[in-house]
């Protein structure tokens, strides 16, 4: 149960692969009816005001609303995460997939040459502020939480 997403606030943009519908038959049945099955990829689209309800997109693009409790009951492998949560994967190389909007943020990441496709390494995952090293030129920079949330990455080796 430790690998459950319990301590993490799911973030918009994260994507996960469902591996098992978990052991609450009611939730499982409910989700299966809606087309969420083992092997399905979910993308978290947005959060509702108190953060406990999420909107997710299922593979073909249908939108579902569900609660964090339901998501937590599923076994899922995250395949896309914001850089702020990569410690769930451990220290590895990550590939940047997309960057959120925002002028100052974009200016700063541009200056350091971070763009979709760049490979990054997080030096001490879980320690804030985050210390990141660019694989290309070995340049390192420090990212605050507010910035790390805006960078969606996947594992570079997988």
């Amino acid at each position: 149960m430790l690998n459950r997403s319990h301590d993490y606030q799911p973030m918009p943009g994260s994507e996960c692969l469902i591996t098992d519908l978990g052991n609450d038959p009611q939730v499982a049945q409910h989700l299966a009816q809606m087309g969420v099955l083992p092997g399905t990829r979910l993308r978290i689209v947005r959060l509702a005001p108190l953060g406990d309800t999420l909107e997710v997109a299922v593979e073909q693009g249908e939108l579902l609303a569900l609660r964090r409790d339901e998501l937590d009951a599923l076994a899922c492998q995250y395949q896309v995460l914001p850089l702020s949560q990569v410690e769930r994967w451990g220290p590895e190389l990550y590939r940047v997939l997309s960057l959120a909007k925002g002028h100052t943020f974009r200016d700063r990441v541009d200056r350091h040459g971070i763009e979709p496709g760049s490979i990054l390494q997080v030096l001490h995952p879980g320690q804030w502020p985050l210390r990141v090293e660019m694989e290309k030129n070995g340049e390192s920079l420090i990212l605050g939480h507010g910035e790390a949330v805006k960078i969606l990455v996947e594992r570079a080796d997988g």
Partner: protein
Amino acid sequence: MNDVAKHQSGRKIIKVALVGQPNVGKSALINSIGNARLKVGNFSGVTVKKEVVRFVRGDYEFKITDLPGSYSLTDYTIEERVTKKYLDEDEYDLILNVVDSTNIERNLYLTTELLALNKKIVIALNMTDEAVNEGVHINEQQLSKILGARCVKTSALKKTGIDELIDAIIETYNSKLPDLHLQFSEPFEEEIANIVDFLQAKKFQCKISLKALAIKLLREDRQAYQRFHEEPIWIELLPIINKAYQHLYLHYGTKDLEDIFNDEKNAVAKGAVAETVVFEKDNRLSLTDKIDALLMHQVVGLPIFLFMMWGLFQLTFDIGSIPMDWIDAFFVALIDGTKNFLGHTELASVIADGAIAGVGAVVLFLPNIIILFFGIALLETTGYMSRVAFLLDGFFHKFGLHGKSFIPLVTGFGCSVPAYMASRTLKNDRDRLLTLFIIGFMSCGARLPIYVLFVGAFFAEHHAGNILFLIYISGALLGILAAKILKMTVFKGKDEPFVMEMPKYRLPSFKLIWHTVSGQALMYLKKAGTFILMASVLVWFASNYPKQPELEQAYQIKIEQAADDAQAKALSNELALSKLENSYLGMIGHASEPFFAPLGYDWRMAVALETGLAAKEVVVATLGVLYGLGDDITEQHTGLIEKIRENISLPAGISFIVFVMIYLPCLAASMVFMREAGGWKYLGYLFIFTTVTAWLLSFAAFHITRMLV
């Protein structure tokens, strides 16, 4: 003439069961085929009980039963149960399965289950217009072959494919039931074959095909089991089934037959889609995405919703009050005219002061009602409703409610009757009961007239919309608070999972909105012309009888001896009032006065509230009759709003509004509540709960306002 009769008796009746997942356009499709007016909305769970539509095409009479949408043939919710029960037990000639072409894979899960029933079936690939726009191309001939059932592309919106669909239904009706076409995975098919072989060897007779029966048994279908328990063959069959289970458990690595069948279903659906559907481009959700970025925004989403509601109530008052003045003037003139025409007789009084005053008081608010219903119709048909349910789910959850409760609650702003029915979509009985108990806090359309009347009487025009909004919002907040209290005390228990589909945004057609709103407006008028009319006449009689000749004589003498006109007028007013107070209604009012006096009401307001138990519109009708009679004699005729302002103090008025917000819904709604909740005792609880709450809060409102002004 003879010919026609023969023709009619020669018509064949085709009974069709309309089945499909929620929000795929089942009801809309029937509306376009059969010119029906079934309720259509852009969210899951619009249809909650079965409804039959009949129409004639050529030599055939169609009897189509619109069933509530369900994702699969399970029986968790009441609406799912309705559908499953109908399919299992009722008589029908064929199933019309409606499928959303833009979401075909998931829709085919249900189709697979329906095919396994081995009944005649026609599949309508609906929403073709949207599918074309989104670049989803379905090869319907190929799909028909794979599924072994006719598939027809339709669009309920654009009315395409309707004739083809009818033809397909007639053809299928006239042809033999084809063999079950469904192909499951090898191990599953193997076990099916085993059971079928055994049953065949035993020459077992059955209404459905043996293969369908075998599938039912392998799914552990309760009904198939029950039927078999009584058969002698059961003892021999049981070991075979058990062995089949063991094989399946082993093969799938799970002991959950539901899971196993889900897997099978999905494999069939995936296979069919892979062979027959081409997805062209991938810009499907771009528009929805853009709108949602704003409307479902984590921070501004809810304020936007509240702002829109506020706007709606501003419109309700501002635009609604323009024709209101004309309607008011019209009825005042009508009352005067009737009296002039018929003279000062009993008949004139019952028509003018009873019927016209009562009905007029209700019709007066038609414009407001129309605007309110228009707003609700927009909420229901655009797809915004589910979004707001999403935005509110977090708060609702904190107060022990389910996010889906939002749908019945919003419906409750229109009318409580469909709202009680709409709570059938909630899975858990506790959640459902809780929702049923607080629906009454959402002020229904019939209470709107009372609010408009009192707000109009006591507040400046530019505040009126705000006050109206405040009334509705505080009613809703009170309801949510009540939910919390009930959840902590009576309806304790674990939370239900929350999974809800977000429909696409759809621009409602003018016709759809028109149908919805005009239907409701007509119903309101019809009620005014029948039920309210009767109630007003009753109220008139109860307030004019018994006659008091001695009293009248005594006053008559006094009036004749009066020194001047002013004194005579005062005396005759006094007479009218004391006649009223000694009438039956006056007696009832005075009897209940002790209960209502601490809230600041005179006996007339008390009576109005009591008659409001029959229907909330009757409250204004009663006020119209009672305050109309009071100043019968005076020459100046004023509108109802003026009369309220003259006769009722502000604190009493506010206290009255609070009482109306909370107390028991009308008779019709109470009956539906009782049925949905499951017994008299719940209605008893509701009565006590609402009356106590209403009394306490009105008491507080009266005294606080009195201190402030």
